[in-house]
Protein backbone atom coordinates (compact mmCIF):
# COMPACT_ATOMS: atom_id res chain seq x y z
CA UNK A 1 0.00 0.00 0.00
CA UNK A 2 1.61 3.18 -1.13
CA UNK A 3 1.57 6.32 0.91
CA UNK A 4 0.77 9.76 -0.41
CA UNK A 5 3.44 12.34 0.08
CA UNK A 6 4.42 15.78 -1.05
CA UNK A 7 7.64 16.74 -2.79
CA UNK A 8 8.45 20.43 -2.78
CA UNK A 9 10.72 21.75 -5.54
CA UNK A 10 12.06 25.19 -4.72
CA UNK A 11 11.69 28.05 -4.10
CA UNK A 12 15.50 28.29 -4.19
CA UNK A 13 16.40 25.08 -5.89
CA UNK A 14 19.81 24.59 -7.52
CA UNK A 15 18.13 23.31 -10.70
CA UNK A 16 16.20 26.50 -11.23
CA UNK A 17 17.57 29.89 -12.05
CA UNK A 18 14.52 31.61 -10.70
CA UNK A 19 12.61 31.34 -7.46
CA UNK A 20 9.33 29.46 -7.64
CA UNK A 21 7.78 26.67 -5.62
CA UNK A 22 6.26 23.51 -7.07
CA UNK A 23 4.46 21.04 -4.88
CA UNK A 24 4.19 17.57 -6.34
CA UNK A 25 1.58 15.44 -4.59
CA UNK A 26 2.78 11.90 -5.18
CA UNK A 27 1.38 8.44 -4.74
CA UNK A 28 4.46 6.24 -4.72
CA UNK A 29 6.35 7.20 -7.84
CA UNK A 30 3.35 8.70 -9.63
CA UNK A 31 2.51 12.41 -9.53
CA UNK A 32 -1.18 12.79 -8.66
CA UNK A 33 -1.48 16.54 -8.38
CA UNK A 34 0.66 19.59 -8.82
CA UNK A 35 0.45 23.06 -7.36
CA UNK A 36 2.73 25.99 -7.76
CA UNK A 37 3.28 29.10 -5.77
CA UNK A 38 4.73 32.27 -7.22
CA UNK A 39 5.32 35.78 -5.98
CA UNK A 40 9.00 35.43 -5.14
CA UNK A 41 9.75 37.49 -8.18
CA UNK A 42 7.06 40.14 -8.03
CA UNK A 43 8.51 43.59 -8.53
CA UNK A 44 5.47 45.75 -9.24
CA UNK A 45 6.50 46.61 -12.79
CA UNK A 46 3.07 47.68 -14.05
CA UNK A 47 2.81 50.16 -11.21
CA UNK A 48 6.39 51.39 -11.68
CA UNK A 49 5.68 51.91 -15.35
CA UNK A 50 3.04 54.53 -14.53
CA UNK A 51 5.67 56.66 -12.82
CA UNK A 52 8.06 56.71 -15.78
CA UNK A 53 8.06 58.56 -19.09
CA UNK A 54 7.57 56.62 -22.33
CA UNK A 55 11.31 56.69 -23.04
CA UNK A 56 12.13 55.36 -19.57
CA UNK A 57 9.52 52.59 -19.71
CA UNK A 58 11.54 50.85 -22.42
CA UNK A 59 14.38 50.31 -19.95
CA UNK A 60 11.93 49.06 -17.36
CA UNK A 61 10.08 46.57 -19.57
CA UNK A 62 13.41 45.30 -20.84
CA UNK A 63 14.11 44.23 -17.27
CA UNK A 64 10.90 42.24 -16.93
CA UNK A 65 12.83 39.29 -18.22
CA UNK A 66 16.49 39.03 -19.06
CA UNK A 67 16.09 36.20 -21.56
CA UNK A 68 13.30 37.74 -23.62
CA UNK A 69 14.54 41.29 -23.09
CA UNK A 70 13.63 42.37 -26.62
CA UNK A 71 10.12 40.97 -26.79
CA UNK A 72 8.73 43.23 -24.09
CA UNK A 73 10.10 46.50 -25.57
CA UNK A 74 8.95 45.18 -28.96
CA UNK A 75 5.37 44.76 -27.78
CA UNK A 76 5.46 48.05 -25.87
CA UNK A 77 6.77 49.89 -28.94
CA UNK A 78 3.98 48.34 -31.03
CA UNK A 79 1.42 49.49 -28.47
CA UNK A 80 2.69 53.07 -28.19
CA UNK A 81 3.13 53.39 -31.94
CA UNK A 82 -0.48 52.30 -32.34
CA UNK A 83 -1.61 55.16 -30.07
CA UNK A 84 0.62 57.69 -31.78
CA UNK A 85 -0.22 56.30 -35.27
CA UNK A 86 3.44 56.25 -36.29
CA UNK A 87 4.67 54.36 -39.33
CA UNK A 88 8.30 53.35 -38.70
CA UNK A 89 10.92 53.24 -41.46
CA UNK A 90 11.89 50.00 -43.22
CA UNK A 91 15.42 50.14 -41.83
CA UNK A 92 14.00 50.26 -38.30
CA UNK A 93 11.79 47.29 -39.09
CA UNK A 94 14.74 45.22 -40.30
CA UNK A 95 16.90 46.12 -37.28
CA UNK A 96 14.09 45.30 -34.86
CA UNK A 97 13.52 41.92 -36.49
CA UNK A 98 17.24 41.10 -36.47
CA UNK A 99 17.47 41.75 -32.73
CA UNK A 100 14.25 39.81 -32.11
CA UNK A 101 15.43 36.77 -34.04
CA UNK A 102 18.93 36.77 -32.53
CA UNK A 103 17.22 36.73 -29.17
CA UNK A 104 15.10 33.77 -30.23
CA UNK A 105 18.23 31.81 -31.16
CA UNK A 106 19.94 32.57 -27.86
CA UNK A 107 16.83 31.76 -25.86
CA UNK A 108 16.17 28.45 -27.64
CA UNK A 109 19.81 27.40 -27.22
CA UNK A 110 19.58 28.27 -23.55
CA UNK A 111 16.50 26.06 -23.29
CA UNK A 112 18.11 23.14 -25.13
CA UNK A 113 21.03 23.35 -22.70
CA UNK A 114 18.84 23.50 -19.63
CA UNK A 115 16.65 20.66 -20.92
CA UNK A 116 19.79 18.55 -21.29
CA UNK A 117 20.73 19.47 -17.76
CA UNK A 118 17.29 18.46 -16.48
CA UNK A 119 17.69 15.08 -18.18
CA UNK A 120 21.04 14.59 -16.48
CA UNK A 121 22.75 15.02 -19.83
CA UNK A 122 25.27 17.71 -19.02
CA UNK A 123 27.17 17.34 -22.28
CA UNK A 124 24.23 18.90 -24.12
CA UNK A 125 24.11 21.67 -21.51
CA UNK A 126 27.77 22.55 -21.99
CA UNK A 127 27.58 22.26 -25.77
CA UNK A 128 24.51 24.42 -26.19
CA UNK A 129 25.84 27.11 -23.88
CA UNK A 130 29.18 27.11 -25.64
CA UNK A 131 27.50 27.61 -29.03
CA UNK A 132 25.37 30.35 -27.51
CA UNK A 133 28.41 32.52 -26.81
CA UNK A 134 28.96 33.70 -30.43
CA UNK A 135 25.35 34.94 -30.46
CA UNK A 136 26.01 36.94 -27.30
CA UNK A 137 29.17 38.29 -28.97
CA UNK A 138 26.99 39.41 -31.88
CA UNK A 139 24.74 41.22 -29.45
CA UNK A 140 27.70 42.90 -27.86
CA UNK A 141 28.94 43.94 -31.28
CA UNK A 142 25.60 45.36 -32.42
CA UNK A 143 24.14 46.79 -29.21
CA UNK A 144 27.02 47.08 -26.76
CA UNK A 145 25.66 44.70 -24.15
CA UNK A 146 25.36 40.95 -23.90
CA UNK A 147 21.90 40.78 -22.42
CA UNK A 148 19.90 43.98 -22.04
CA UNK A 149 20.12 45.63 -25.40
CA UNK A 150 18.41 49.02 -25.00
CA UNK A 151 17.75 49.17 -28.73
CA UNK A 152 14.14 50.31 -28.84
CA UNK A 153 12.48 53.68 -28.60
CA UNK A 154 9.17 55.11 -29.71
CA UNK A 155 9.29 55.45 -33.48
CA UNK A 156 12.65 53.80 -34.03
CA UNK A 157 15.77 52.19 -32.66
CA UNK A 158 18.63 53.75 -30.72
CA UNK A 159 21.54 52.36 -32.72
CA UNK A 160 22.00 51.61 -36.38
CA UNK A 161 23.45 48.41 -37.79
CA UNK A 162 25.84 50.09 -40.21
CA UNK A 163 26.42 48.51 -43.60
CA UNK A 164 30.06 47.77 -42.78
CA UNK A 165 28.88 45.55 -39.93
CA UNK A 166 26.79 43.31 -42.18
CA UNK A 167 29.75 41.25 -43.33
CA UNK A 168 31.18 40.33 -39.90
CA UNK A 169 27.67 39.54 -38.66
CA UNK A 170 27.08 37.23 -41.63
CA UNK A 171 30.40 35.51 -40.99
CA UNK A 172 29.62 34.79 -37.33
CA UNK A 173 26.18 33.51 -38.35
CA UNK A 174 27.72 31.18 -40.96
CA UNK A 175 30.07 29.75 -38.34
CA UNK A 176 27.19 29.36 -35.97
CA UNK A 177 25.11 27.52 -38.57
CA UNK A 178 27.67 24.71 -38.78
CA UNK A 179 27.73 24.31 -35.02
CA UNK A 180 23.96 24.38 -34.93
CA UNK A 181 23.81 21.55 -37.48
CA UNK A 182 26.05 19.53 -35.20
CA UNK A 183 23.97 20.23 -32.11
CA UNK A 184 20.64 19.63 -33.83
CA UNK A 185 21.89 16.35 -35.28
CA UNK A 186 23.23 15.22 -31.94
CA UNK A 187 20.03 16.01 -30.07
CA UNK A 188 17.61 14.64 -32.68
CA UNK A 189 19.47 11.35 -33.18
CA UNK A 190 20.42 10.62 -29.61
CA UNK A 191 18.80 7.37 -28.41
CA UNK A 192 18.97 8.47 -24.75
CA UNK A 193 17.12 11.71 -25.46
CA UNK A 194 14.55 9.80 -27.52
CA UNK A 195 13.98 7.39 -24.66
CA UNK A 196 13.60 10.13 -22.08
CA UNK A 197 11.45 12.61 -24.01
CA UNK A 198 9.24 10.71 -26.48
CA UNK A 199 5.73 10.20 -25.15
CA UNK A 200 6.54 12.25 -22.04
CA UNK A 201 4.50 15.26 -20.99
CA UNK A 202 2.08 14.92 -23.91
CA UNK A 203 -0.29 17.82 -24.55
CA UNK A 204 -3.04 17.17 -27.08
CA UNK A 205 -4.39 19.75 -29.48
CA UNK A 206 -7.49 20.10 -27.32
CA UNK A 207 -5.39 20.68 -24.16
CA UNK A 208 -3.60 23.53 -25.87
CA UNK A 209 -6.89 25.14 -26.85
CA UNK A 210 -8.40 24.57 -23.38
CA UNK A 211 -5.45 26.10 -21.57
CA UNK A 212 -4.83 28.79 -24.21
CA UNK A 213 -1.16 27.87 -24.45
CA UNK A 214 0.99 29.86 -26.86
CA UNK A 215 4.33 29.76 -28.63
CA UNK A 216 6.43 26.62 -29.18
CA UNK A 217 4.31 24.77 -26.61
CA UNK A 218 1.25 25.18 -28.84
CA UNK A 219 3.14 24.67 -32.09
CA UNK A 220 4.54 21.35 -30.87
CA UNK A 221 0.98 20.07 -30.52
CA UNK A 222 -0.03 21.01 -34.03
CA UNK A 223 -1.64 24.38 -33.26
CA UNK A 224 0.01 26.74 -35.71
CA UNK A 225 -0.21 30.09 -33.93
CA UNK A 226 2.50 32.65 -34.33
CA UNK A 227 2.01 36.37 -33.83
CA UNK A 228 4.68 37.10 -36.42
CA UNK A 229 2.37 35.61 -39.06
CA UNK A 230 -1.09 36.17 -37.56
CA UNK A 231 -0.65 39.84 -36.63
CA UNK A 232 2.36 40.94 -38.69
CA UNK A 233 4.67 43.55 -37.26
CA UNK A 234 8.19 44.83 -37.99
CA UNK A 235 9.87 43.18 -40.97
CA UNK A 236 8.19 39.78 -40.76
CA UNK A 237 5.80 40.38 -43.67
CA UNK A 238 8.76 41.51 -45.81
CA UNK A 239 10.73 38.27 -45.57
CA UNK A 240 10.07 34.62 -46.36
CA UNK A 241 9.78 32.19 -43.50
CA UNK A 242 7.42 29.50 -42.27
CA UNK A 243 5.82 28.53 -38.99
CA UNK A 244 7.34 25.31 -37.64
CA UNK A 245 4.89 22.83 -36.16
CA UNK A 246 4.97 19.26 -34.91
CA UNK A 247 2.08 16.94 -34.16
CA UNK A 248 3.14 14.74 -31.24
CA UNK A 249 2.88 17.28 -28.41
CA UNK A 250 5.49 15.56 -26.24
CA UNK A 251 8.75 16.97 -24.91
CA UNK A 252 10.67 15.76 -27.95
CA UNK A 253 8.31 17.61 -30.28
CA UNK A 254 8.88 20.80 -28.30
CA UNK A 255 12.63 20.37 -28.61
CA UNK A 256 12.24 19.68 -32.34
CA UNK A 257 10.14 22.80 -32.88
CA UNK A 258 12.68 24.96 -31.07
CA UNK A 259 15.68 23.51 -32.86
CA UNK A 260 14.07 23.93 -36.28
CA UNK A 261 12.87 27.44 -35.43
CA UNK A 262 16.48 28.46 -35.00
CA UNK A 263 17.07 27.73 -38.71
CA UNK A 264 14.08 29.90 -39.61
CA UNK A 265 15.51 32.65 -37.41
CA UNK A 266 18.88 32.48 -39.14
CA UNK A 267 17.15 32.69 -42.50
CA UNK A 268 15.09 35.71 -41.36
CA UNK A 269 18.23 37.48 -40.11
CA UNK A 270 20.04 36.86 -43.39
CA UNK A 271 17.14 38.25 -45.41
CA UNK A 272 16.91 41.25 -43.10
CA UNK A 273 20.62 41.94 -43.51
CA UNK A 274 20.10 41.88 -47.28
CA UNK A 275 17.18 44.25 -46.81
CA UNK A 276 19.38 46.63 -44.80
CA UNK A 277 21.70 47.08 -47.77
CA UNK A 278 18.84 48.60 -49.78
CA UNK A 279 17.87 51.16 -47.15
CA UNK A 280 19.58 54.45 -46.43
CA UNK A 281 22.05 54.34 -43.54
CA UNK A 282 21.03 56.24 -40.42
CA UNK A 283 17.35 56.31 -41.34
CA UNK A 284 16.40 54.73 -38.05
CA UNK A 285 13.79 56.93 -36.43
CA UNK A 286 10.62 58.89 -36.95
CA UNK A 287 10.13 61.92 -34.77
CA UNK A 288 7.20 61.49 -32.40
CA UNK A 289 6.15 64.78 -30.90
CA UNK A 290 3.40 63.67 -28.58
CA UNK A 291 1.49 60.60 -27.54
CA UNK A 292 -2.22 61.44 -27.87
CA UNK A 293 -5.00 60.17 -25.63
CA UNK A 294 -6.03 56.61 -26.38
CA UNK A 295 -5.58 52.90 -25.90
CA UNK A 296 -2.96 50.90 -27.76
CA UNK A 297 -2.30 47.18 -27.83
CA UNK A 298 0.93 45.64 -28.95
CA UNK A 299 1.78 42.02 -29.55
CA UNK A 300 5.07 40.34 -30.22
CA UNK A 301 6.20 36.75 -30.54
CA UNK A 302 8.68 36.12 -27.74
CA UNK A 303 10.76 32.93 -27.79
CA UNK A 304 8.15 31.47 -25.43
CA UNK A 305 5.01 32.74 -27.16
CA UNK A 306 2.86 35.80 -27.40
CA UNK A 307 3.69 38.87 -25.35
CA UNK A 308 0.81 41.29 -25.00
CA UNK A 309 1.06 44.89 -23.84
CA UNK A 310 -1.87 47.24 -23.43
CA UNK A 311 -1.15 50.91 -22.80
CA UNK A 312 -3.71 53.54 -21.74
CA UNK A 313 -2.58 57.05 -22.49
CA UNK A 314 -4.14 60.26 -21.17
CA UNK A 315 -2.02 62.47 -23.38
CA UNK A 316 0.67 63.07 -20.77
CA UNK A 317 4.23 61.82 -21.09
CA UNK A 318 3.79 58.67 -19.02
CA UNK A 319 1.30 55.78 -19.35
CA UNK A 320 -1.91 56.04 -17.34
CA UNK A 321 -2.15 52.26 -17.10
CA UNK A 322 0.11 49.59 -18.53
CA UNK A 323 -1.05 45.98 -18.67
CA UNK A 324 1.36 43.17 -19.49
CA UNK A 325 0.61 39.54 -20.27
CA UNK A 326 3.57 37.23 -20.72
CA UNK A 327 3.49 33.86 -22.51
CA UNK A 328 4.49 31.74 -19.53
CA UNK A 329 1.38 32.90 -17.72
CA UNK A 330 -0.82 30.66 -19.85
CA UNK A 331 1.83 28.01 -20.57
CA UNK A 332 2.42 27.25 -16.90
CA UNK A 333 -1.21 26.17 -16.49
CA UNK A 334 -0.60 23.23 -18.86
CA UNK A 335 1.39 21.54 -16.07
CA UNK A 336 -1.98 20.31 -14.79
CA UNK A 337 -2.26 18.20 -17.94
CA UNK A 338 1.34 17.32 -18.75
CA UNK A 339 2.67 16.31 -15.31
CA UNK A 340 -0.19 14.46 -13.64
CA UNK A 341 0.08 10.70 -14.05
CA UNK A 342 3.79 10.78 -14.81
CA UNK A 343 6.62 9.54 -12.65
CA UNK A 344 8.53 12.08 -10.58
CA UNK A 345 11.59 11.72 -12.78
CA UNK A 346 9.59 12.62 -15.90
CA UNK A 347 7.81 15.48 -14.16
CA UNK A 348 10.91 17.67 -14.04
CA UNK A 349 11.46 17.60 -17.79
CA UNK A 350 7.72 18.11 -18.38
CA UNK A 351 7.93 21.20 -16.17
CA UNK A 352 10.94 22.46 -18.07
CA UNK A 353 9.47 21.69 -21.49
CA UNK A 354 7.31 24.80 -21.75
CA UNK A 355 10.38 26.92 -20.91
CA UNK A 356 8.63 28.61 -18.02
CA UNK A 357 9.79 32.11 -17.23
CA UNK A 358 8.66 33.33 -13.85
CA UNK A 359 10.07 36.81 -13.97
CA UNK A 360 7.85 37.40 -17.01
CA UNK A 361 4.81 35.91 -15.37
CA UNK A 362 4.73 37.66 -12.05
CA UNK A 363 2.20 40.33 -12.78
CA UNK A 364 -0.24 38.53 -10.51
CA UNK A 365 -2.33 40.34 -7.90
CA UNK A 366 -4.52 37.57 -6.48
CA UNK A 367 -3.32 34.07 -5.62
CA UNK A 368 -5.48 31.39 -4.03
CA UNK A 369 -4.30 27.98 -2.97
CA UNK A 370 -7.14 25.89 -4.38
CA UNK A 371 -6.38 22.95 -2.07
CA UNK A 372 -6.58 24.62 1.31
CA UNK A 373 -8.55 27.64 0.14
CA UNK A 374 -5.88 29.73 1.82
CA UNK A 375 -5.54 33.20 0.45
CA UNK A 376 -1.97 34.02 -0.37
CA UNK A 377 -2.39 37.58 -1.58
CA UNK A 378 -5.36 39.44 -2.96
CA UNK A 379 -5.68 42.60 -4.94
CA UNK A 380 -6.87 44.72 -2.03
CA UNK A 381 -3.94 43.68 0.13
CA UNK A 382 -1.60 44.56 -2.67
CA UNK A 383 -3.18 47.98 -3.04
CA UNK A 384 -2.91 48.23 0.74
CA UNK A 385 0.81 47.56 0.45
CA UNK A 386 1.10 50.34 -2.07
CA UNK A 387 -0.90 52.73 0.15
CA UNK A 388 1.30 51.83 3.12
CA UNK A 389 4.35 52.60 1.10
CA UNK A 390 2.98 55.99 0.07
CA UNK A 391 2.17 56.96 3.64
CA UNK A 392 5.53 55.65 4.80
CA UNK A 393 7.32 57.82 2.27
CA UNK A 394 5.10 60.74 3.12
CA UNK A 395 5.95 60.45 6.81
CA UNK A 396 9.63 59.90 6.13
CA UNK A 397 10.01 62.89 3.88
CA UNK A 398 7.54 64.94 5.88
CA UNK A 399 5.32 65.58 2.86
CA UNK A 400 1.76 66.68 3.35
Amino acid sequence: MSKKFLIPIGPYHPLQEEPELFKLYCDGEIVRDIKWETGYNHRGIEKLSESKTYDQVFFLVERICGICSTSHPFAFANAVEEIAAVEITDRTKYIRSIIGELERIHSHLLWVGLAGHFLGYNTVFMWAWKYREPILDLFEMITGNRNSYAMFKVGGVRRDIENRMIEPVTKILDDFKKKNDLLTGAVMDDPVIHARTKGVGVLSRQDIIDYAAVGPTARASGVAIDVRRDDPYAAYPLVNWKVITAEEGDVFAKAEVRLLEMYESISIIEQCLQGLRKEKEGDIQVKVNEIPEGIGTGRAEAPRGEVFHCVFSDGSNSPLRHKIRAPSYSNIATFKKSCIGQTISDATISLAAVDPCYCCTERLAAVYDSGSGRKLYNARELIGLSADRTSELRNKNDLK
Partner: protein
Amino acid sequence: MGFKSYCFKKSLWVFHFGGASCNNCDIEILDCLTPRYDLERFGILLVGSIRHADVLLVNGSINRKDKDRLLELYQQAPKPILVVAIGACGCTGGIFAEGNTFAGPVDKIIPVDAYIPGCPPKPEAIIAGIVKLVKSLP
Protein backbone atom coordinates in the same frame (compact mmCIF):
# COMPACT_ATOMS: atom_id res chain seq x y z
CA MET B 1 47.42 33.99 7.59
CA GLY B 2 44.29 34.32 9.66
CA PHE B 3 41.75 31.57 10.15
CA LYS B 4 39.25 33.29 7.88
CA SER B 5 41.53 33.43 4.87
CA TYR B 6 42.68 29.87 5.55
CA CYS B 7 39.06 28.78 5.11
CA PHE B 8 38.87 30.44 1.71
CA LYS B 9 42.31 29.37 0.48
CA LYS B 10 41.20 26.32 -1.47
CA SER B 11 38.19 25.72 -3.70
CA LEU B 12 35.23 27.99 -3.05
CA TRP B 13 31.77 26.46 -3.10
CA VAL B 14 29.08 28.83 -4.13
CA PHE B 15 25.36 28.97 -3.38
CA HIS B 16 23.24 31.12 -5.65
CA PHE B 17 20.22 33.00 -4.35
CA GLY B 18 18.19 34.64 -7.11
CA GLY B 19 15.85 37.18 -5.58
CA ALA B 20 13.23 39.11 -7.52
CA SER B 21 15.50 39.50 -10.50
CA CYS B 22 15.07 39.72 -14.24
CA ASN B 23 17.10 36.55 -14.84
CA ASN B 24 19.97 38.32 -16.54
CA CYS B 25 22.38 38.00 -13.64
CA ASP B 26 21.28 34.40 -13.12
CA ILE B 27 22.16 33.39 -16.65
CA GLU B 28 25.45 35.28 -16.50
CA ILE B 29 26.33 33.40 -13.29
CA LEU B 30 25.49 30.12 -15.05
CA ASP B 31 27.55 31.34 -17.99
CA CYS B 32 30.60 31.53 -15.72
CA LEU B 33 30.37 27.75 -15.27
CA THR B 34 30.05 26.87 -18.96
CA PRO B 35 32.97 26.12 -21.31
CA ARG B 36 34.08 29.62 -22.28
CA TYR B 37 34.72 30.81 -18.72
CA ASP B 38 34.71 27.45 -16.91
CA LEU B 39 35.15 28.50 -13.30
CA GLU B 40 35.14 24.90 -12.16
CA ARG B 41 38.79 24.62 -13.13
CA PHE B 42 39.53 26.84 -10.12
CA GLY B 43 37.44 24.64 -7.86
CA ILE B 44 34.50 27.03 -7.82
CA LEU B 45 31.41 24.87 -7.77
CA LEU B 46 27.71 25.69 -7.58
CA VAL B 47 26.25 23.67 -4.71
CA GLY B 48 22.67 22.75 -3.91
CA SER B 49 22.63 23.55 -0.21
CA ILE B 50 23.69 26.63 1.70
CA ARG B 51 25.14 24.33 4.38
CA HIS B 52 27.89 23.31 1.97
CA ALA B 53 28.70 26.82 0.75
CA ASP B 54 31.59 29.22 1.36
CA VAL B 55 30.13 32.01 -0.72
CA LEU B 56 26.55 33.25 -1.01
CA LEU B 57 25.82 35.00 -4.31
CA VAL B 58 22.75 37.21 -4.14
CA ASN B 59 21.28 38.88 -7.20
CA GLY B 60 18.07 40.70 -7.92
CA SER B 61 16.08 43.16 -5.90
CA ILE B 62 14.71 41.61 -2.72
CA ASN B 63 10.94 41.77 -2.32
CA ARG B 64 8.88 41.20 0.81
CA LYS B 65 8.44 37.51 0.13
CA ASP B 66 12.16 36.94 -0.44
CA LYS B 67 13.41 38.95 2.54
CA ASP B 68 12.67 36.44 5.31
CA ARG B 69 13.97 33.58 3.22
CA LEU B 70 17.25 35.35 2.53
CA LEU B 71 17.67 36.06 6.23
CA GLU B 72 16.95 32.42 7.06
CA LEU B 73 19.48 31.23 4.48
CA TYR B 74 22.12 33.51 5.95
CA GLN B 75 21.44 32.16 9.43
CA GLN B 76 21.71 28.58 8.18
CA ALA B 77 25.02 29.22 6.44
CA PRO B 78 28.19 27.90 8.07
CA LYS B 79 30.34 30.83 9.21
CA PRO B 80 32.57 32.39 8.03
CA ILE B 81 30.67 32.99 4.80
CA LEU B 82 31.31 35.58 2.11
CA VAL B 83 28.29 37.38 0.69
CA VAL B 84 28.50 38.85 -2.80
CA ALA B 85 25.79 41.14 -4.16
CA ILE B 86 25.64 40.87 -7.95
CA GLY B 87 24.12 43.34 -10.37
CA ALA B 88 22.59 46.76 -10.01
CA CYS B 89 19.53 45.31 -8.24
CA GLY B 90 21.61 43.36 -5.75
CA CYS B 91 23.77 46.38 -4.93
CA THR B 92 21.14 49.10 -4.71
CA GLY B 93 17.76 47.85 -5.87
CA GLY B 94 18.34 49.38 -9.30
CA ILE B 95 15.31 50.21 -11.35
CA PHE B 96 13.03 48.31 -8.95
CA ALA B 97 14.02 50.24 -5.81
CA GLU B 98 10.86 52.35 -6.08
CA GLY B 99 8.57 49.33 -6.43
CA ASN B 100 5.84 48.73 -3.88
CA THR B 101 7.12 45.27 -2.96
CA PHE B 102 10.77 46.22 -2.59
CA ALA B 103 12.30 45.25 0.76
CA GLY B 104 16.04 45.41 0.05
CA PRO B 105 18.72 46.15 -0.98
CA VAL B 106 20.72 43.13 0.12
CA ASP B 107 23.05 45.04 2.46
CA LYS B 108 20.08 46.28 4.51
CA ILE B 109 19.20 42.65 5.25
CA ILE B 110 22.50 40.79 5.60
CA PRO B 111 26.15 42.00 5.67
CA VAL B 112 27.71 42.11 2.21
CA ASP B 113 31.43 41.58 1.51
CA ALA B 114 31.60 42.51 -2.15
CA TYR B 115 29.48 44.36 -4.69
CA ILE B 116 29.64 43.58 -8.41
CA PRO B 117 27.72 46.30 -10.27
CA GLY B 118 26.41 46.12 -13.82
CA CYS B 119 23.14 45.32 -15.50
CA PRO B 120 24.02 42.52 -15.89
CA PRO B 121 27.74 42.33 -15.01
CA LYS B 122 29.69 40.42 -17.65
CA PRO B 123 31.05 37.02 -16.60
CA GLU B 124 34.54 38.59 -16.64
CA ALA B 125 33.35 41.16 -14.11
CA ILE B 126 31.89 38.47 -11.86
CA ILE B 127 35.16 36.51 -11.96
CA ALA B 128 37.20 39.67 -11.32
CA GLY B 129 34.96 40.52 -8.37
CA ILE B 130 35.41 37.12 -6.75
CA VAL B 131 39.21 37.27 -7.30
CA LYS B 132 39.40 40.73 -5.73
CA LEU B 133 37.32 39.58 -2.78
CA VAL B 134 39.52 36.56 -2.08
CA LYS B 135 42.69 38.66 -2.42
CA SER B 136 41.41 41.28 -0.01
CA LEU B 137 41.03 38.80 2.85
CA PRO B 138 43.55 39.45 5.65
